[in-house]
């Protein structure tokens, strides 16, 4: 069932999947669409992994007849191995995708999307304790601002 929040998340996913570096490197895309249940569990065998998930939202009645609705999405990327560079490469590519989509607002300005921006980036190595293999996790927070 289409709604502007789902449209925004899927449009960002499409833009990421259209990127040459990401489409070449990412082995598993967690799309969280219909079909068989997929778990968000990250295993070394499925890496590199990229997923786009809803994170947070809000509403501000900024105008008498229009609301500003921020939609925060988490773009998570994971690579197996202690070398952080492959994960950094994915993050750099994702940052580039967000930058390149700023002017066109993912083609959703007609639905009220004003723009998108990056508001945060978290890094984590998992597992943190002693383990034979390390997985680097990067979580990029992308903010979509809707005016509707």
């Amino acid at each position: 069932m289409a709604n502007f929040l789902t449209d925004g998340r899927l449009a960002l996913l499409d833009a990421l999947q259209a990127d040459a570096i990401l489409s070449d490197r990412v082995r598993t895309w967690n799309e969280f669409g219909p079909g068989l249940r997929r778990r968000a569990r990250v295993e070394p065998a499925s890496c590199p992994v990229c997923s786009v998930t809803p994170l947070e939202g809000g509403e501000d009645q900024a105008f008498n007849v229009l609301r500003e609705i921020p939609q925060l999405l988490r773009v998570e990327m994971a690579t197996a191995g202690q070398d952080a560079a492959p994960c950094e490469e994915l993050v750099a590519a994702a940052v580039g995708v967000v930058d390149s989509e700023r002017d066109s607002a993912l083609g959703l300005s007609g639905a009220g999307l004003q723009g998108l921006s990056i508001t945060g980036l978290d890094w984590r190595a998992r597992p943190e304790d002693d383990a034979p293999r390390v997985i680097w996790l990067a979580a990029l927070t992308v903010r979509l601002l809707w005016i509707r």
Partner: protein
Amino acid sequence: MATGDGTIHEGRDRHVRLAREDEFGSPPSSADWTCLPLDGNGWSVRSARDWFLPEPAMDGASAEPAAPGLLSPRGRLSVAPHPEAVQFLLDAALNRPAPDGLHTYCADHVTPVESRRYLGMAAAGLTLSAVADRVRIGLRLCGHDEVAGTGVTSSDFDYSGLTAVPFSLRGAHLELDGAALEAVSGFTLRVNNDLQPGPNVGNRTAYLLAGRRTVTLRLHGLHGGSRVDEALREGGSVGFSADFSHPAGHSLWLRLPRLLPRRSEGDGPPGRPARRTARLVAARDPSAGHDIDYGVSLSS
């Protein structure tokens, strides 16, 4: 604020629309209304009346019986630059059908409590502030008359022709002979039309005269170069150019070909980046023939 039956209403229940008048102070016969989404508390127009208080010999602390002055609606409108409305708003403040005349407008303001119509409204001033995605247009309005109980209701307002997403500032810079000199983070443009009321006719202002336009520009965050300082020291001028973009491909541009620097200053709190600001006043460029120019292009 409460309605007659005690119901509380909020700012979202207020509506404003404007239409250009054919004749000063008369509602247009076939009005082409522009309904405007208000930015926050973006409408403060109300009627005001001054009172003449005679001062005969002091006969106590209380005022003598006073004579009413003119009724004069005045206040501010603040909106975002929605693509389909921005030309309408800029024309209201900057387009002069005659050297001493501005277009005048009929405005309807409706809440669940009341409906008011303002006639003969003209833009005494314009404020355009722009920093990245935050662009706002403010009009300082004054006019001829206020009429209550017009029968207009919220159902008469149609916003379907407006794109919800407003323009964003794409880039602004100072320039000399068409070449870019310094980029600017943001700016505030102010226009004062020096509006003067005409004579009193029927306890209302008969007409409004626009005087010499004063256009000032405040630049925030000048990046690199020292052209403003040089122009300030030498008594020279610079130009200014700003472009606004929209995800749907619409565009808006603003040009001030001849700006005279009045002041340039900088600040640098210890924990924050040092920033330079500048204040300039626009003058008519002899070659361009104007002090300010603008244009809006809507992609189909």
